[in-house]
């Protein structure tokens, strides 16, 4: 006698603008496999049950950052969230919070992309040195200063966890500030003064009230909340230096 494969139910939020005024939940029942992640179940639905379901994913291994979803109300990478952690209860899957919904689980990420470019997350030099002089060298200690912040995969879970961003969509937000901080800490970079204009603007670091949930949900352990507070500290110290020692010529 064949033992029936256990099943698990997924309640997936649907939004088809040509069909619905607002999102609805649709339940699907799929086979339960101990080694399946939520993304496997959704792929199974897409391939075998309902081809109209829309969502983003790519690498299936926690690297590309495109499969972020709200899973039982928590922002998570669906490729790194196992069914077994919820089974036998059903799982509710919704698009990442705090972003507009394009369709089903697909969010509009233009706002994040814009903010990301605003902080110029690349190495800025006042003057590039000629190729003949070789590469910009760095010691292991210099690398260690910013290494943690390079691990960001731009998955936007931190924006989804941030109530400040929810209430004020102009806030530059955790990932973009953490990346700005990453380049500011890089010994090869000289762009701090440019980024500072964005970072210390009203929508920048001072909008953050240190709720800290961005760092809790970050799948890459970047600690964006820490980065923002560190940037606040640096900015404050720089300000004092400018006021108290104007001749120091930073």
């Amino acid at each position: 006698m064949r033992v029936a494969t256990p099943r698990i139910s997924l309640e997936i939020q649907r939004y088809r603008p040509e069909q619905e005024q607002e999102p609805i939940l649709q339940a699907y029942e799929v086979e339960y496999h101990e080694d399946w992640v939520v993304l496997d179940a959704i792929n199974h639905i897409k391939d075998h049950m309902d081809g109209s379901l829309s969502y983003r994913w790519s690498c299936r291994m926690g690297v590309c950052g495109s499969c972020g979803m709200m899973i039982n109300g928590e922002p998570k990478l669906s490729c790194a969230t196992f069914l077994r952690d919820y089974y036998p209860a059903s799982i509710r899957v919704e698009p990442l919070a705090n972003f507009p919904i394009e369709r089903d689980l697909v969010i509009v990420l233009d706002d994040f992309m814009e903010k990301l470019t605003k902080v110029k997350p690349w190495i800025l030099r006042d003057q590039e040195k000629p190729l003949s002089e070789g590469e910009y060298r760095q010691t292991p200690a210099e690398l260690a200063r910013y290494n943690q912040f390079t691990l960001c995969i731009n998955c936007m879970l931190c924006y989804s966890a941030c109530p400040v961003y929810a209430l004020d969509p102009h806030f530059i937000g955790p990932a973009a500030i953490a990346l700005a901080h990453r380049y500011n800490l890089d010994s090869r970079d000289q762009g701090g003064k440019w980024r500072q204009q964005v970072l210390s603007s009203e929508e920048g670091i001072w909008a953050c009230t240190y709720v800290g949930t961005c760092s809790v949900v970050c799948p890459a352990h970047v600690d964006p909340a820490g980065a923002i507070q560190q940037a606040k500290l640096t900015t404050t110290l720089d300000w004092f230096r400018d006021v108290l020692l104007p001749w120091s010529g930073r």
Partner: protein
Amino acid sequence: MTPFQRPVSAIWWLKKRAYFFFILRELTSVFIAMYLVLLLLLLQRLSAGPGPYAAYLRFLATPGMFAFHAVALAAALYHTLTSMSFLPNIIVVRFGEFRLPAIAYAVGSYSGWIVISVLIFWIVVLR
């Protein structure tokens, strides 16, 4: 096709433990501010002479004021302890590639706290 914008609930801070404790922490500042007002009034009464000062002390000894101070103390402790737990993420101390671990911050801030408390106790009570 217009993207769907989800509204933010007015009680968003009740929806997650972490949000609730964040709001609670923000609220502790209100109690600390009120305590500081009482402290400033104490100084003002002190400068007004022994009569007003004694009257103010009697006011502080009323059950309502006693309860307020108990709550303000709890608020100050919560604020302080959480602040100290944030330190390692905010003030990064490095020696080359080595980063000072969180435990070192805890040892530093707690022992500093104890030393200052003992010092104040000595000045106010023992001397």
